[in-house]
Structures are given as C-alpha cells and as structure tokens.
C-alpha cells in the first residue's frame, strides 16, 4: 500500500462553486493509504505546486492524487512537480473533477459525491502505480519526401542544405509536378519553367538528395524517428543510369498515338517518352500500356536505336527499403474531373477547356508551340469566355465546398495574357467574387480590367451550347440584372482543385488524419500548421489545403525547418506507458503480434526453469519499448493475460472499475 497524498483544487470557483472541495478532501482523507489530504485555490499555481512538493517530502508520499482539471490540461505540470520533489512522475494520478464533474453538474451534493468517487478511483489506481522511466529511441537522420512537385523539391532542398540526407519519391517519370505544366506565374508573370527547372536540377545535383522518380511508397512502418519505408521503383524498362536522355528512341518509336499526359491529352506522344525537355531525371520511360514489344513481344525498335543499350524489356519493379526519421507529405493536387458538368459542354466540345489545359495551349512547349489556337479547328479564337468557380464552393456532390483559392488569380493572368498577345480578342470573365488577398494580387487583377480591358461580369454562366462552330454562352449579369448571350470561340473553365487521388492511401499508410475533403489535417490549424497530428509526419503544399506557389514554397520551407529540428536530435524520449510481456505466462501463440500496429512484438525461444529442476524451452513474446506506442490492443488479444500495459495495467483499470461501482 502506498502512502498517498490527495490534493483537491478549487480552480478558483470553477470547481469550488459546484463541488464542496473541503468535503471531498475530508472524505478522501479517510481512504485506506491516504496520509495527507488538503485543498487549495489553484493547485497549478506556483504556491499550489510548492504545497504538493512540500507535502511529498514532509509526509514521505509514495503516490499523489490531484483532484483538478483534466489530465490533458495539467498532468504534465503535476508530474514535473512530483519529479522535483523526488517522486517518480508516474506516481501521480489526476481525478478530473472539473471538465468531467463541476462543469457538467449544477447540484452541489451530486457533484461533490461524484468528485469523491472519481477521487477514490484515482486513489485505487495510484495504489497500483509503479514508477516508470521513459526510454529513449534513436533518430534516423534521413527524411523522406513523398511527392516531387515544387513543395517536395523545396522541402528536400532545405533539409539537404541543413546537411541531412533526403529521399524524394515521385510517382511520375520526372519531378517538377504541376508547376512544370504552368506557363507564367502570377502576379509577376515570370515564366514558371525558368524558376522551377533550376530548382529541379539543383535537387538532382545535391549530394544529400536522392530522387526516386517513377516510384511509389509501398508501405511505411514504425514511428517518429524510426520509420521504415518500402519504396517501389516501377519498371520503366530503361536503365536509368545508362540512358543519356538523347531522345532518339522517342523519335523512332512506331507507336505514335499515345495521349500525352504532360499536355493533358491535347497532343500525342510515343510509347517510349521523356515527358518534357527539362525532365529530371532526363531519361526515357516505356509506357507498358502502349508498347507493342511489351504487349506482344514484337517490335524492339527502341532497343535497336539506343546506342547506350539502356533499354531493358525484362525490367521488374524494384523494392528499396530505407529507414527515415521524418516523412514529409507533398502529394499535391489535380483539377477535378468535369464530366458531370454537362451545362458547360466540357465533354461535348474540344473548345471548352480547363485552365490547366489553357496553360498548355499558351505555352511555348505546348501542343500549339505557344500560339493560341482552337483545339477543334486550329483557328485563332476571337471571343474567349472564362468561367470561375467551376466546382469550387459547391455543395452539390459533383463539386467541392471549399474555395480553390488560386483560380481568381490565374484567370486574371490568362485573361491578361490573351489580351496582351492577341489584342483582337474579346475576353469575358464570369465571376461570383474576385478574391485577391495577397501581395500585389489586387493590383494585378485591376490591371487586367483597367489596362487590358478584360470584361469582368458579376454572374455565372448558366449553359454553354456548341452550335455552328461557336459556343453559345448564356449567362447572367447580376449588376445589370440581365441575361446575356455570347457567341464564344473558346470557353475556359476554372476547375476546382482536389488532393491527389493517392493521398487517401498514403494517409492510411502513415496513420495521418484527413478531413472530409481528403486534405491532410494539421496538428493545430493555427499553431502547428505544417505538422500532422501523427508525430514525425509533416505537410507541405496543397496536400494540406489549396495554396499558390509562394505559399507552397513558404510552407515547404516551414516543414523542412520542422524536419531539421527533429533530425537534429540524437534521441527522442519514449512514452514509458508501453506494453510488457510476462514471459512466465506467455505461451508464444502470436495473438498479440497479429494485432500490433507497430510490429513492436517479437518472439524468441527461451529456456525457463520447469518442474523438478528441468529446463523448458519456450517461445515467448517481447515488446520493443521504443516501438510500442501503448495502445493496448495486445493486452486484450492475449488470452493468458501475459501482456499488460504499464500505466494502464489490467489491475489498475479493474481497481478503478471497482472504486466507481462500489
């Protein structure tokens, strides 16, 4: 039996107004083992803490029960207090008589009675507490970045600059992400490629960075500081280290009718391809869905023309296993599919395009070599209609309830560029609101209107009907309270953006939580915006929420600094409340191992003393305390009761049950 001290906090009037704290202290003072019981206005104050410290020393207390606010609030505070008095911090238990008692009950006798019972339960538990010491786990000084867009690249570069090795895993054949497809950037109108490609090259050349392109993360196990990932390098049927990127194969390949995803299917590429000229790594990749050699075994042209001998039709997916201390998620976004928006005729007319497609049509490296031409007939368009908020701010199921944030600005950019390059065009922008919070953003939008004469119309497009080579646009002009009709040559839809489809499975793999829109949730929306609630997982870029490039880069840097802060530590303190196997009772049945989410349980054959001085060899479980996170799943899976959880042991919980049900 422990010598227990009970401290009842008034929390000003928060507790004392509904709980008779004196009566609680008096009642608990009569409990077996309690040698000291008192109450005080604010136990968490310095004076309150001193009181606890002095009582521990004076009464030689072995356990402390504090009846106060939630343990989520001040458990750490009081543990530290106990530690200062020379008591093991885990000999402190909190009875939550504020959030779970005084604040929910109005009647004083009822609340007081409940507070006494909660106090008794805590006393019953403390009697069975044992001193616990937190172990340490080493930190693997390497980071993994999932996603090789601008967010991933920037994070990797910043971490690498601090001297830590980083691996980037990118599922596409090249890093660069969405930004590679963008022509110009707002509000400066500088060329996206011009600012991105140097960063891509820098990442490729940085000694601390390894790039796994055309690869995916297959599985992640472990925990903060000690993740273990398996990376699948998909077979590209080209030896990456041998290919020189000369591109001869991509010219000779007879399979010419493959939709070019880099240009969003606006033109075609070959079955063997390099996505674009500045790709990193600049190596060819064979598309197994179109390659006749891979499909039917007949062809082999690329292998014949490749002077480097880089083609390998027999290549298999390769798996790389690596340990990491931290993981950054930078999985980015995609525009939503518009096939359910019949009113805009996106599926009916090639001249109705998304803004990202429009980027390619304006880009010098795009399908039209930078000249704006109508996809349907290659004619120069004269009337362009931009529609904003397509799928954004929608509560219908085909849309997204959030604002995609970047559309107002890129639409202004597109409109402005059209008018600049082709002054003969009429450009209409239909908007609900124009949102321009950002440095030089509103000025940029105003320039589109004032300098470039873009027609901004407050209202929405109701329908687009392709008719006689024109797109009949019917829309409302809310300011003039009119319905207007425009015969447009092209309609450009500002499609909402959504997290990449791989995000959900990655979140599950990393045990990181997501919101209903599949954006990763941050540990705290204001104070910890670049960390996931799961320790060791960090968020960079649009995977956390819609962002433009400067914001993405800023968040990427912030995530990197958090990673650097983690990797700079040699050890992390472990949670001492972990599972423990009693080898004498374990029968080695593996039930616990099957339910452990962390793989913290291993088995070994050990010799034990048997009856009559014999030795018995038995298979028994042991828990790696650095890996165990203390969920307790094993304790219930174990039929023998050989598994127990420190700090939440079976006997402790049963003692609490007994005290409550008395």
């Amino acid at each position, binding site marked *: 039996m422990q010598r227990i001290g009970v401290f009842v906090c008034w929390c000003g009037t928060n507790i004392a107004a509904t709980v008779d704290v004196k009566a609680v202290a008096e009642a608990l003072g009569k409990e077996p083992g309690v040698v000291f019981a008192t109450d005080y206005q604010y136990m968490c104050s310095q004076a309150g803490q001193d009181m606890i410290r002095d009582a521990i020393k004076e009464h030689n207390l072995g356990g402390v029960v504090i009846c106060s606010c939630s343990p989520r609030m001040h458990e750490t505070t009081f543990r530290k207090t106990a530690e200062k008095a020379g008591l093991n911090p885990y000999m402190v238990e909190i009875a939550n008589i504020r959030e779970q008692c005084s604040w929910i009950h109005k009647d004083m006798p009822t609340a007081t009675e409940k507070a006494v019972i909660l106090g008794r339960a805590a006393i019953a538990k403390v009697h069975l507490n044992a001193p616990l010491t937190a172990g340490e786990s080493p930190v693997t000084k390497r980071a993994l970045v999932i996603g090789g867009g601008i967010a991933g690249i920037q994070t990797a570069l910043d971490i690498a600059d601090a001297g830590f090795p980083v691996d980037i895993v990118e599922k596409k054949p090249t890093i660069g992400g969405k930004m590679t497809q963008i022509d110009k950037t707002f509000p400066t109108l500088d060329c996206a490629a011009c600012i991105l490609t140097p960063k891509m090259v820098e990442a490729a050349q940085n000694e601390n960075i390894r790039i796994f392109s055309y690869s995916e993360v297959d599985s992640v196990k472990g925990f903060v500081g000690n993740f273990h990932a398996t990376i699948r390098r998909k077979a590209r049927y080209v030896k990456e280290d041998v290919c020189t990127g000369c591109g001869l194969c991509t010219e000779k390949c007879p399979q010419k009718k493959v939709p070019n995803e880099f240009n969003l299917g606006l033109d075609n590429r070959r079955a063997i391809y390099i996505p674009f000229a500045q790709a990193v790594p600049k190596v060819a990749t064979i598309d197994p869905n179109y390659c006749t050699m891979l499909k039917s075994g007949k062809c082999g042209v690329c292998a014949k023309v490749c002077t480097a001998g880089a083609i390998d039709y027999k290549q298999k997916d390769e798996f790389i296993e690596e340990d990491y201390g931290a993981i950054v998620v930078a999985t980015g976004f995609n525009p939503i599919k518009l096939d359910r928006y019949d009113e805009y005729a996106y599926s009916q007319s090639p001249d109705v395009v998304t803004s990202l497609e429009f980027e390619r049509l304006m880009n010098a490296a795009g399908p039209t070599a930078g000249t704006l031409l109508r996809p349907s007939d290659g004619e120069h368009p004269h009337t362009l209609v931009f529609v904003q908020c397509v799928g954004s701010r929608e509560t219908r199921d085909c849309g997204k309830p959030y604002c995609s944030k970047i559309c107002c600005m890129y639409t202004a950019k597109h409109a402005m560029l059209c008018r600049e390059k082709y002054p003969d065009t009429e450009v209409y922008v239909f908007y609900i609101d124009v949102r321009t919070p950002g440095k030089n953003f509103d000025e940029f939008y105003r320039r589109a209107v004032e300098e470039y004469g873009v027609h901004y119309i407050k*209202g*929405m497009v*109701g329908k687009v009907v392709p008719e006689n080579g024109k797109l009949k646009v019917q829309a*409302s002009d*809310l300011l003039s309270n009119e*319905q207007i009709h425009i015969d447009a040559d092209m309609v450009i839809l500002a499609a909402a953006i959504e997290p990449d489809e791989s995000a959900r499975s990655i979140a599950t793999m990393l045990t990181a939580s997501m919101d209903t829109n599949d954006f990763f949730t941050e540990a705290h929306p204001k104070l910890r915006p670049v960390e996931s609630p799961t320790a060791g997982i960090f968020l960079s870029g649009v995977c956390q929420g819609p962002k433009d490039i400067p914001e993405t880069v800023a968040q990427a840097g912030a995530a990197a600094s958090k990673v650097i802060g983690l990797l700079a530590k040699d050890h992390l303190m472990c949670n001492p409340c972990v599972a423990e196997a009693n080898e004498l009772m374990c029968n080695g049945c593996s039930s616990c191992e099957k339910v452990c989410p962390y793989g913290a349980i291993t088995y070994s054959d050990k010799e034990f003393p048997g009856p009559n001085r014999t030795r018995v060899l038995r298979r028994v479980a042991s828990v790696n305390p650095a890996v165990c996170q203390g969920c307790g799943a094993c304790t219930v899976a174990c039929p023998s009761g050989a598994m127990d959880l420190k700090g939440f042991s079976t006997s402790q919980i049963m003692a609490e049950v007994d005290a409550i049900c008395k």
Partner: protein
Amino acid sequence: MQKNQELELTATIKRISGVNPRLCMKCGKCSATCPAFDEMDYHPHQFVDLVDKGQIEKLMNSKGIWNCLSCFACLERCPRMVEPAKLIEAVRLAVIRQQGQNHLKPEQIPDLLDENLPQQAITSAFRKYAK
C-alpha cells in the same frame, strides 16, 4: 405592410418551399440558366434575395411568378442547392391562398368537365386552388 405580417409571410414561404435562402452565395447561375429569364420581372436570383430580405409582397405582386416554367433548371444547376424554383412555387401558392377565395368551387366542376381532360388533373387542380 406590418413588420410582423412580413415576417410571418416570409416564414410561410420558407416553410412551404423548404428552402433556406441564406445558402445562396449570389452567383446568379440560376438566372444564367433560366429559359424564361426575359419574361420575368424578378429573376430567379432576385427571388432568393427578396425572400431572404423578407420582401415577399413585391414578389406576390409580380406578374413574373406566373411565367416561371417550373423547368427546374435553376434548381438543378444551383451550386449551393438553394432551389429557387421551389420559392417561386411557394410564392404562387401564397398568392392564391392570400386572396382568400376559391378559384374553383365544387359546383363549377361539372361545367369544366371535358372528355379529354384527365380526371386526375381536376382533382389536383381542385386540391391546389381550393384552399
């Protein structure tokens, strides 16, 4: 009109239609999509706005309410699921009911009977117009 009466009327419209006009983000897609736009004095987006503001009387006096085709295009395309067509229908009903007179009396029915008119139409018309 008295303020109280106004509030009551607004509540009635909301109750009949089941529409919450506050969901509207004033994008105007309803009006953009409306095939009867030119025939109406108040356009669908204004309907939502006026109901929200409680100015039902204006709507009730409007001729335009009878020009709505009830094609439900606005309802279909509204990004916020406000359903303006239902508001219009509700205003129509309110007009009919407020006039306090039966547009159709039981004794009138025999005269109206037409061999080509489905009985169901009469029953439903009676149900709708006879308070």
